[in-house]
């Protein structure tokens, strides 16, 4: 069990609750237990949401699933659609899809990467980094960024718009489209649509590269702070292509330890159950996956941008690979684990995604009309996995002879990062909370650590910069000593 996960004598400690911490799909909360000297004894990130999609999907026809299940999320529906459809390709009997269909799906997915990474960094995270963790909370939002840094805000909005346009042209809608269907795609890309997107590539590359440089510059202002904030060693997992390069659409699972040593490599994701295991804890509705061979205590891992840029051998696009080298150089040959470095890695991925989109648009196959593969024998069971913006996303289905889904297991990126997010807030609480009085700025330090992992948890889709938080300080008898609130009620 992790240090600070469970205190020995909780009844003797004071409890601080941050409740709710909003996320896209519902609410989470943070609880901290402190002794009389304000020493931290327990920190937990509780995910109190219950989505229930694994059960909703049971009993539904398999061909409906990719479109229905994407309603899990409003930020990365494309990722859920593609993970589901990769599984349903196999269920429906399509062993291979056409080159045009795969490239269109890739285009959709990398468009999703651009828009999601842009909305995360510019809209949700940049107010903390550009205006300050302790800055005036009423201005610590995208509007505040737009007032102080109008050019940066504009670039963020337009980068996101570009990603949305890519999704719209491939999925039919900017959010919750229907592009990917079992066996291929239902919509080709017209020459006019391709040219429309192509025209913006140079500008998008410049802006995405500018975002990476901005994070590099911010890091240089206080390297020790950026490296150490929420820093903790952990395993890392994701998938890479057959050559060991970053591939966000398809690949084999790879895991490395905190020192960069390989734990497993090129594992067929269909057999994820051989290398990963999910654990249930009594205090959270979210499961805790870990590497089976290492056990629950030592086998937990990070997924997402910071893991992906470090588990891959290289990024197969020139500009992003150059930037990746700058980031990993911080570790001097060892992996880096600072929580704020997620943002830097995320913008490197955004740059990579724009480069991939440019290459796909230059490929003649992208305007092909052969959209559906050849159907073979129906299967009962299949797994689809994709590298979603926030990390590795697993969809596992079993379908009966009557074509209705009878089993569904989803391990979403946030679930994969569950223990890592808990460790991040434990580290930040130890670094910044111990011995200090609760303030709004302090609360925001905890939010910043959560936010670095996943905008689904940190800000939700409806509350940009206005995360509702309530912290209560109780004495050992449970009496309220003080309360700090913001944006509650």
């Amino acid at each position, binding site marked *: 069990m992790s240090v600070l996960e469970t205190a020995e004598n909780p009844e003797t400690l004071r409890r601080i609750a941050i409740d709710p911490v909003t996320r896209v799909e519902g609410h989470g909360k943070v609880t901290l237990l402190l002794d009389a000297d304000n020493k931290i004894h327990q920190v937990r990130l509780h995910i109190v949401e219950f989505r229930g999609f694994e059960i909703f999907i049971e009993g539904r026809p398999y061909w*409906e699933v990719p*479109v229905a299940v994407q309603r899990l999320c409003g930020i990365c529906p494309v990722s859920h659609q593609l993970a589901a459809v990769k599984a349903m390709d196999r269920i429906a009997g399509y062993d291979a899809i056409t080159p045009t269909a795969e490239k269109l799906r890739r285009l959709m997915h990398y468009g999703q990467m651009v828009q999601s990474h842009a909305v995360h960094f510019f809209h949700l995270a940049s107010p903390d980094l550009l205006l300050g963790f302790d800055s005036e909370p009423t201005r610590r939002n995208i509007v505040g960024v737009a007032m102080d840094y109008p050019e940066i805000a504009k670039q963020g909005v337009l980068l996101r718009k570009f990603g949305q346009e890519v999704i719209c042209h491939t999925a*039919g809608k900017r959010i919750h489209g*229907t592009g990917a269907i079992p066996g291929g795609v239902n919509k080709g890309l017209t020459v006019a649509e391709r040219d429309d997107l192509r025209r913006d590539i140079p500008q998008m590359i410049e802006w995405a590269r500018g975002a990476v440089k901005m994070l590099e510059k911010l890091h240089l202002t206080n390297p020790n702070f950026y490296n150490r904030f929420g820093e903790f060693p952990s395993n890392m997992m994701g998938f890479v292509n057959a050559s060991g390069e970053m591939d966000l659409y398809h690949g084999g699972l790879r895991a490395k330890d905190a020192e960069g040593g390989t734990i497993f490599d090129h594992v067929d994701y269909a057999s994820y159950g051989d290398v990963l295991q999910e654990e249930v804890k009594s205090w959270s509705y979210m499961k805790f996956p870990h590497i089976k061979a290492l056990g629950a205590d030592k086998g937990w891992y990070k997924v997402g941008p910071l893991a992906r840029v470090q588990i891959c051998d290289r990024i197969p696009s020139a500009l992003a690979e150059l930037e990746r080298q700058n980031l990993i150089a911080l570790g001097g040959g060892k992996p880096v684990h600072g929580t704020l470095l997620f943002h830097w890695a995320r913008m490197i991925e955004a740059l990579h995604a724009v480069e991939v989109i440019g290459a796909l648009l230059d490929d003649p196959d992208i305007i092909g009309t052969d959209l559906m593969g050849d159907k073979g024998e129906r299967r009962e069971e299949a797994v689809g996995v994709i590298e979603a913006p926030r990390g590795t996303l697993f969809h596992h289905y079993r379908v009966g002879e009557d074509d209705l889904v009878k089993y569904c297991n989803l391990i979403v990126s946030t679930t994969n990062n569950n223990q890592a997010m808990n460790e991040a807030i434990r580290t930040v609480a130890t670094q910044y909370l111990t011995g200090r009085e609760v303030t709004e700025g302090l609360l925001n330090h905890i939010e910043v650590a959560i936010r670095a992992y996943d905008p689904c948890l940190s800000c939700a889709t409806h509350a940009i910069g206005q995360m509702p938080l309530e912290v209560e300080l109780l004495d050992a008898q449970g009496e309220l000593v003080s309360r700090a609130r913001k944006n509650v009620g």
Partner: protein
Amino acid sequence: MTDIPNSFNLDGEPIPFEPGQTILQAALNSGHFIPHLCAHPEFKPHGSCKLCIVVVNDRTGASCTMKALPGLEVQSDTPDLNHRRRTLLQMLFVEGNHFCPGCEKSGNCQLQALAYDLEMFNDHFTHFFQPREVDASHPDFFLDRNRCIMCELCVRASRDLDGKTVFGLAGRGRDLHLVVNSASGKLGDSAFAKTDRAARVCPVGAILPKEVGFAKPIGERKYDETPISQLAFTCDWEG
């Protein structure tokens, strides 16, 4: 009173009709839309959904069952009647389990199209969330009772055109549900065939072919492109 023989006034417009026609038939023939769900030109009027409600000479009734007569003053497109229609639609939505975002029929669905056309912006009533069975026992088609609105078009098609009586309604009130005429009660054990008229008459997504899911993108479907009020009698499934 209008001075044209075999004509009545609909919302102030003269509507010609053939003897024996209903008000709804005459209105649609002359290009005037009256919202409707259970009416279909191939089948006898049913008068159950009440979406086609009109006021005729100060009396309220279903236009699909009321004969057109010379000189009638018929009101249809009025705020009061459209409000009643919206209420009926809201009740249909909360009684069944209609999840349009994941439904293959979305964009081709008459219920959804009418809700858009009549500007039904919310469900208003509390959802029943009734458990409704999905019957996927047939090799070619599946029956999703979550979406059934009890219009009995499949009942009439199977009985009157297919000569099979595969479908019927059983139960009362909230327990009213579509049943299948077979020993097991399953579609796969019935005489239903994919070539039946009943297979392609459902105005919602209750009877759909298998393995067809979003082959046609949302946004390019029948009612995505043209409002239902401009399409009148078109409720066949289009894939």
